[in-house]
């Protein structure tokens, strides 16, 4: 309100007079126009607010004025009715706050005084200010609707206030005004009992908004490492920061998975399951017992760690445990599935979020230079080094584009390039095959080693070492080879990413295949061990030489011979791989980045060449490698978490440490990229890779669950034919029989195959629908574009025609156009006059002088002033046919 007061004191006076007038004529014809006058103004305002610019500012001011007059009018009426004309505008502020309390009394007075003689059929029901505001008339439906509309509009304004291109002072004032309006008129809406409900609903809505805001405030406070990432962002640009944001996201996902596994599997087993040492699967075998606590053994996840709740083998196959009768095998199975389910859902959801935000990029080719000019500077950069490299990058990219533009079809020695590319691809395929074979060989060899008794440290860890070394040395090798190909850097980066991805994937799958061989080997031996176990127990209990009357104490669990438990073995492999991967990453960072940085920094004083600018220099942060490493690590976690429930806990620790460690490393010892590439859409690219890896890691797990028999003496599914039998068992025993029948019916292939068919049909249908929609979309876009261009050329023709007709072209403006430099004193009147154009057009009056002014500025440089009179008409005609045609005259 004080905005109104300060902005237009004259309005207030006018408002008073209006109020007096209406007071003299209590026939209440005045009130509706007063209010009726405002909706168009409001509409104008809403329309105007979407169209930013200086013309609008004036418009809105005028509207404010108009509306305030309306408001004053209404208020004036009220005042006259209660005979309080002497109240100055100073008091109005205070009144606004008091209005709530005073309104009922006033209303009653009014009712008594004015309503009686008129003998209205209906008594006015609303007890708020609005009834008094509308004078002696009750609110008709129409007016109510109008007020409601206005209030809704105001609310919308409040909600979208932050995205209005106004200065803050204006926003604040508008906000205050809108809020006051809503406050004032909200009560008028609704009638009778409905009114209270309405008021209550409004109150609740306000509370809800407040709560939501507080919740958002709280939520943003809960996001960790915000400042760290911001620091990195300002130093290295958004691409490096995107890795850390991805890492943080990954940490969140893993935290959820960890909560799931820890809360539903590990904790119940530890609390309610049979304690350690009571049954064979929970006991370290006698042969291993002396060394079970040695660090070297523990480090390999053998000994006590192997027989702990971290691994599959520890879990018992009891159907229910503890006094809760918790169905642990069932829970284990369901958690294993829901880990994948949750990951799939969250990855797909964030992918969908990413794609929703992005616009179509089909037309980006049309705007190469514009995009370079207006979007190439990364406003996040807050570091002079990064800024330097960004300047350099932009300059090169401009130069590149210029060269491309100038000689776009000049190709130098295609044959040589092609030959080199073929060679490079050949080399890289050789590398990939070689690394795959190497891993296969090493895994096979490790199986040999595992049969031997005392193996050295290297022999035990050969697989992990080789895989880590391959991961370390192959990407730089690929980069070296890729230098042969002479691709454009962006294309080159894609190739590089694809190759590293193939390398990692190949390595992972070779590893898996070799592991699978091992599993099959173990499975084939299992039958024999099972017999041995039976025999041992049988002999133990039936052997002679024991007092028959006293039952024999059961065999000590450590002495029972047992199978190899392939599930735990697989879990241990993944655990080791994860830990060694983590260590290798950290060591690489320490040696490759930190030591190198120290060396360069301190040896630079006493070296014969400039180390910082010359050969070793500082390391750059390797985004692609790090992202791919993170993604594959997550793949291993997904694969291994079914066999090693503790793996996710380890991973959470790993991500946590690497967040801090890498943040520190990148800030202390890395330099910004020379070739700064953009982070746009890289996030959805990461997500796509992640989804692929998730799918690929789902396959082996699903295979083992569906088609391998579980070990007979370890794990929650021991004794069953397949792991998923636990589902059937639960359905049969714990659900009512009819449910069991339904499930059996659902599992019928006769039903599943049609369901799959139906899904395919649905996919096909939706796909075709989306295709046709996008086609329609494209067509509409084209149509809109054509329409607008048509309109514009039409307008410019008309404008120029009028300009040349009017004849008095100010020379200064065309001169300005030729000089291309407008001094400020001259531009301000121009802009002011231009700002009125839309207004005038809207009012229907011709665009005479201002239009001519601003349109002559638009003449191409080089037009001689003065001679424009005869020529301008022809130019106007030509301008319709495009800018190219416009050039020749100059």
């Amino acid at each position: 309100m004080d905005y109104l007061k300060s902005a237009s004191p004259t309005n207030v006076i006018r408002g008073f007079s209006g109020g007096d007038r209406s007071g003299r004529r209590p026939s209440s014809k005045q009130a509706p126009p007063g209010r009726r006058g405002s909706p168009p103004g409001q509409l104008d305002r809403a329309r105007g607010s979407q169209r930013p610019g200086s013309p609008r500012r004036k418009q809105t001011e005028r509207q404010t004025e108009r509306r305030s007059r309306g408001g004053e009018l209404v208020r004036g009426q009220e005042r006259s009715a209660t005979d309080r004309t002497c109240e100055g505008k100073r008091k109005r502020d205070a009144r606004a706050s008091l209005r709530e309390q005073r309104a009922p009394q006033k209303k009653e007075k009014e009712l008594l005084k004015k309503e009686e003689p008129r003998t209205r059929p209906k008594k006015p029901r609303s007890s708020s200010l609005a009834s008094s505001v509308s004078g002696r008339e009750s609110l008709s439906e129409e007016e109510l609707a109008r007020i409601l509309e206005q209030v809704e509009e105001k609310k919308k304004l409040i909600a979208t206030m932050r995205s209005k291109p106004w200065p803050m002072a204006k926003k604040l004032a508008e906000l205050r005004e809108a809020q006051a309006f809503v406050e004032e008129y909200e009560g008028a809406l609704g009638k009778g009992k409905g009114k209270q409900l309405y008021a209550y609903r409004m109150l609740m809505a306000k509370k809800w908004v407040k709560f939501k805001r507080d919740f958002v405030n709280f939520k943003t406070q809960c996001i960790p490492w915000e400042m760290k990432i911001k620091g990195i962002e300002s130093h290295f640009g958004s691409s490096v920061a995107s890795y850390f944001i991805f890492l943080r996201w990954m940490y969140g996902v893993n935290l959820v998975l960890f909560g799931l596994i820890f809360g539903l599997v590990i904790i119940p087993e530890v609390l309610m399951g049979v304690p350690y040492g009571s049954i064979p699967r929970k006991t370290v075998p006698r042969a291993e017992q002396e060394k079970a606590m040695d660090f070297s053994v523990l480090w390999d996840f053998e000994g006590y760690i192997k027989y702990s709740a971290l691994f599959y083998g520890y879990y018992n196959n009891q159907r229910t445990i503890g006094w809760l009768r918790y169905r642990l095998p069932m829970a284990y199975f369901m958690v294993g599935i829901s880990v994948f389910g949750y990951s799939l859902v969250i990855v797909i959801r964030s992918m969908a979020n990413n794609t929703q935000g992005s616009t179509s990029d089909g037309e980006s080719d049309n705007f190469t230079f514009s995009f370079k000019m207006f979007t190439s500077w990364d406003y996040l950069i807050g570091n002079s080094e990064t800024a330097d490299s960004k300047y350099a990058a932009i300059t090169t990219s401009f130069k590149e584009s210029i060269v491309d533009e100038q000689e776009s079809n000049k190709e130098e020695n295609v044959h040589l390039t092609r030959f080199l590319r073929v060679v490079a691809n050949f080399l890289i395929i050789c590398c990939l095959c070689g690394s795959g074979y190497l891993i296969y060989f090493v895994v096979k060899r490790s199986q040999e080693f595992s049969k031997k008794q005392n193996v050295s440290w290297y022999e035990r860890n050969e697989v992990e070492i080789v895989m880590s070394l391959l991961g370390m040395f192959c990407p730089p090798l690929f980069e070296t080879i890729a230098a042969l190909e002479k691709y454009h850097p962006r294309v080159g980066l894609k190739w590089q990413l694809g190759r590293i991805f193939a390398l990692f994937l190949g390595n992972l799958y070779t590893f898996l295949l070799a592991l699978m061989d091992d599993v099959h080997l173990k499975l084939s031996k299992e039958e024999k061990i099972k017999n041995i176990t039976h025999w041992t127990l049988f002999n133990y209990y039936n052997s002679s030489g024991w007092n028959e009357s006293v039952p024999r104490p059961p065999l000590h669990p450590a002495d029972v011979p047992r199978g190899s438990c392939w599930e735990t073995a697989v879990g241990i492999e993944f655990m080791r791989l994860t830990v060694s991967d983590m260590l290798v990453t950290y060591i690489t960072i320490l040696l490759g980045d930190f030591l190198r940085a120290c060396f360069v920094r301190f040896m630079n004083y006493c070296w014969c060449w400039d180390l910082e600018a010359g050969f070793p220099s500082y390391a750059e942060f390797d985004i692609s490698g790090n992202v791919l490493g993170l993604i594959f690590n997550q793949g291993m976690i997904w694969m291994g978490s079914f066999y090693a429930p503790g793996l996710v806990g380890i991973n959470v620790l790993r991500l946590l440490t690497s967040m801090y460690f890498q943040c520190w490393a990148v800030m202390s010892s890395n330099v910004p990229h020379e070739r700064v590439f953009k982070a746009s859409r890289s996030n959805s690219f990461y997500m796509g890779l992640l989804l692929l890896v998730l799918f690929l890691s789902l396959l082996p797990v699903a295979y083992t669950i569906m088609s391998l028999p579980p070990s007979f003496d370890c794990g929650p599914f021991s004794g069953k034919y397949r792991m998923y039998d636990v589902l059937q068992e639960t359905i049969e025993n714990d659900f009512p029989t009819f449910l069991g029948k339904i499930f059996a019916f659902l599992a019928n292939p006769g039903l599943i195959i049609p369901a799959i068919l139906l899904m395919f049909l649905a996919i096909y249908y939706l796909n075709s629908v989306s295709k046709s929609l996008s086609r329609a979309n494209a067509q509409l876009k084209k149509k809109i574009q054509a329409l607008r261009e048509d309109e514009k050329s039409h307008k410019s023709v008309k404008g120029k025609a009028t300009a040349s007709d009017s004849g008095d072209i100010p020379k200064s403006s065309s001169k300005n156009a030729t000089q291309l430099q407008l001094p400020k004193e001259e531009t301000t009147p121009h802009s002011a006059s231009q700002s009125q154009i839309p207004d005038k057009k809207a009012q229907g009056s011709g665009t005479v002088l201002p239009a001519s002014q601003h349109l002559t500025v638009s003449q191409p440089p080089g037009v001689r002033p003065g001679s424009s009179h005869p020529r301008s008409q022809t130019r106007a005609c030509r301008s319709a046919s495009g800018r190219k045609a416009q050039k020749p005259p100059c």
Partner: protein
Amino acid sequence: MGSKQTVFTHEQLEAYQDCTFFTRKEIMRVFYRYQDLAPQLVPLDYTSRPDVRVPYELIGSMPELKDNPFRQRIAQVFSEDGDGHMTLDNFLDMFSVMSEMAPRDLKAYYAFKIYDFNEDDYICAWDLGQTVTRLTRGELSAEEVALVCDKVLDEADSDQDGRLSLEDFQNMILRAPDFLSTFHIRI
């Protein structure tokens, strides 16, 4: 957060939250950044709305802005009378528009104003030349700059009047894949 009650009233904070894309905590952070720029100038009590302006020299030396080739334009666009001296409201405005949450249209509008060097509501060839020169630190020759400007006009100027109107600019920037991620300052 005991200090925030002394800086702003509750209503002020609510109003600022309605008018910017910031949460309460972020508003306080922005305020402290502002206050840090000129501790002797900016009071720690804003409940009575003191009329304080921090000069452009201090605004432009913020780490977020000091390497930006358009920092002067940004400050001019967001300051009240175009001289680059900013009140707290202007300052909040600036970072609200530059925040991640701001919609594309709003950003496009202010980007247009920033690139419109001579403030005639059109981006003309001279403005484009300025932009290129600043982006490349003047390392392109005059012909190259002219060529680039020509190409930009050729691409984005849909009504062929030799300069970019706000509409042209929005139309072009709407399709830019990187605009939202690059036109963005974190504070």
